[in-house]
């Protein structure tokens, strides 16, 4: 029996599609990564269906690509090989459990940020999750698997750090649970002190199985929150201020962007440039507390650092939230009430891309300076995006490109992104949500034994090589 018939038997004919339109929709994303259509799309709704799909794919040796909304901005759901089947998990969208005491939520892959936020606000108003700048309709579970960053990442780190445990269908079809949830229902309180097998799935871009449930940490919603803006000049003072402020541990979150992005949010039309005399960067800093006094004191800690820096350059300006809304427009409201429509400022054209990296704090400033020169050389809008991560143990660094997808611009975007990645890699930065071309560059810098270990783990879990083959460039080195 062909794979299509097998899949139709498992989920019913209405949830299998191989029409030209469906294949086209799943063949590309917003990035510059080359498109390739899948052979089929299947939409399971239950764990059992996922398991049977994986078993069937093993029989026919059919590549499977786990997919929720395809918004990774890394080309991660574009088939890397011919004949792949997209396993679209949108219909698995249950919020299974919220544990108020241990503060976690158990979700299926199709649960979106918008869905989770509303559910928590309605049913568990004292708890919160953490939200990205990404569209509200993207997957909470996929985001955590991808080790991305949200609006508590300055405090708590990359999104995989929020995972308490998960349930997955292995590439060979067995269902496994990792984390304390392996000991029974309603017990997903931690991933320790067991061997930390979350690492078999997080960061793997769907190569090691299909995750069907995930327990994620929630946090108490603080009664008092405040945001402040900071306009600053020069890479060195900007990074110094961000680093100093983050190290005080008063922040929930920090976003530092080039001024053109500040202006985009304020409504300036494309293309947006940086003019002489304008601040180079704008930061949005978020603090919270149990009392107004606690919050005010945290703001004072920030203010003291900024005032010290102002002794050298008085143009650095700290702006209260009220001042910012008044001077820069009400559009800033959704920026701090994520998930929101804010991502639309980046959707000016049909193309959107970046190579996001995590980097050692000591290289942050240099890579920003040199990265800026690269982007300026190519003549793109200057949209650096930085976040202090996990109390300043490391930094996030990327340049964002919103671009029209004509051949010439796509070529320039590819060249510019490649140059930026080479730069970042030369300073030991590690890309996240890594497209294949970037993974290959990364591999050249990694210890070969690390790559060997990755390949060995992948082969052990997926002997038939059916799970999202081609990702991480692992097949290339045989």
């Amino acid at each position: 029996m062909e794979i299509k018939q097998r899949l139709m038997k498992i989920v019913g004919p209405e949830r299998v599609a191989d029409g030209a339109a469906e294949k086209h929709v799943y063949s590309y994303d917003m990035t510059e990564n080359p498109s390739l259509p899948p052979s089929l799309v299947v939409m399971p709704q239950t764990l059992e269906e996922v398991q049977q799909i994986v078993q069937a794919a093993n029989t026919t040796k059919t590549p499977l690509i786990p997919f929720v909304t395809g918004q990774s901005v890394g080309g991660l759901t574009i088939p890397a090989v011919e004949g792949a089947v997209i396993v679209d998990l949108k219909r698995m969208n249950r919020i299974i459990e919220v544990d108020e005491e241990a503060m976690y939520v158990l979700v299926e892959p199709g649960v979106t940020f918008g869905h989770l936020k509303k559910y928590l606000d309605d049913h568990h108003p004292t708890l919160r999750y953490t939200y990205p700048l990404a569209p509200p309709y993207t997957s909470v579970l996929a985001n955590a698997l991808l080790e991305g960053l949200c609006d508590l990442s300055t405090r708590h780190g990359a999104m995989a750090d929020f995972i308490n445990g998960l349930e997955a269908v292995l590439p060979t079809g067995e269902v496994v649970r990792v984390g304390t949830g392996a000991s029974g229902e309603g017990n997903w309180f931690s991933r320790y002190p067991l061997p930390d097998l979350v690492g078999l799935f997080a960061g793997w871009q769907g190569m090691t199985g299909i995750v069907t449930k995930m327990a994620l940490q929630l946090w108490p919603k603080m009664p008092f929150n405040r945001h402040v803006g900071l306009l600053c000049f020069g890479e060195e003072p900007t990074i110094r201020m961000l680093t100093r402020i983050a190290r005080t541990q008063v922040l929930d979150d920090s976003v530092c962007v080039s001024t053109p992005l500040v202006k985009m949010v304020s409504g300036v039309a494309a293309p947006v440039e940086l003019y002489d005399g304008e601040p180079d960067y704008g930061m949005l800093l978020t603090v919270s507390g149990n009392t107004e006094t606690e919050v005010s004191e945290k703001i004072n800690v920030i203010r003291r650092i900024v005032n010290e820096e102002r002794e050298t350059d008085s143009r650095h300006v700290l702006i209260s939230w009220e001042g910012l809304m008044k001077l820069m427009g009400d559009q800033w409201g959704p920026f701090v009430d994520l998930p929101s429509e804010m991502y639309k400022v980046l959707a000016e054209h049909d193309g959107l891309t970046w190579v996001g990296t995590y980097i050692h704090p000591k290289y942050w400033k240099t890579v920003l300076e040199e990265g800026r020169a690269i982007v300026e050389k190519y003549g793109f809008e200057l949209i650096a995006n930085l976040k202090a991560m996990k109390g300043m143990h490391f930094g996030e660094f990327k340049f964002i490109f919103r671009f029209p997808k004509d051949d010439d611009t796509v070529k320039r975007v590819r060249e510019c992104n490649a140059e930026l990645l080479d730069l970042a890699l030369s300073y030991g930065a590690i890309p996240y949500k890594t497209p294949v071309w970037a993974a290959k560059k990364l591999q050249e810098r990694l210890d070969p034994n690390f790559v060997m270990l990755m390949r060995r783990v992948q082969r052990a879990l997926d002997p038939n090589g059916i799970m999202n083959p081609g990702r991480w460039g692992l097949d290339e080195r045989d």
Partner: protein
Amino acid sequence: MLNEPKDLVGNVLYILLARQFEDDRLLSEVKDWRMTVVLDTDYYPVTLTFADGITIERGAVPNPTIILGTTFDTIVSIAAEEMSPVRGLINRKLRIRGLLKHPRAAFRFYRLIVRAMGV
């Protein structure tokens, strides 16, 4: 009536003024004004040309009717109501040049901007 400038300070002025011009009466009053104002900030200067509306441009025109010298920090403090415009004038954080020669223009602009800042 009001162009949308692409620089930061100009855009701030645009946002402040656009809100005010939802008031038709103010709009028709301002349309009749004829003057140029340079807002000379520590970031860079911006010129507001009042002639059948307002054009906001980066840079300073020669011989404006009035020049308002200040810092962006002062603008922020006034917007956040941490400093009143009067206190700004007394402390010389706001400096108006052309006041004696063009008191009416200076007063008009001062009133407009204070209203726009909501203070």
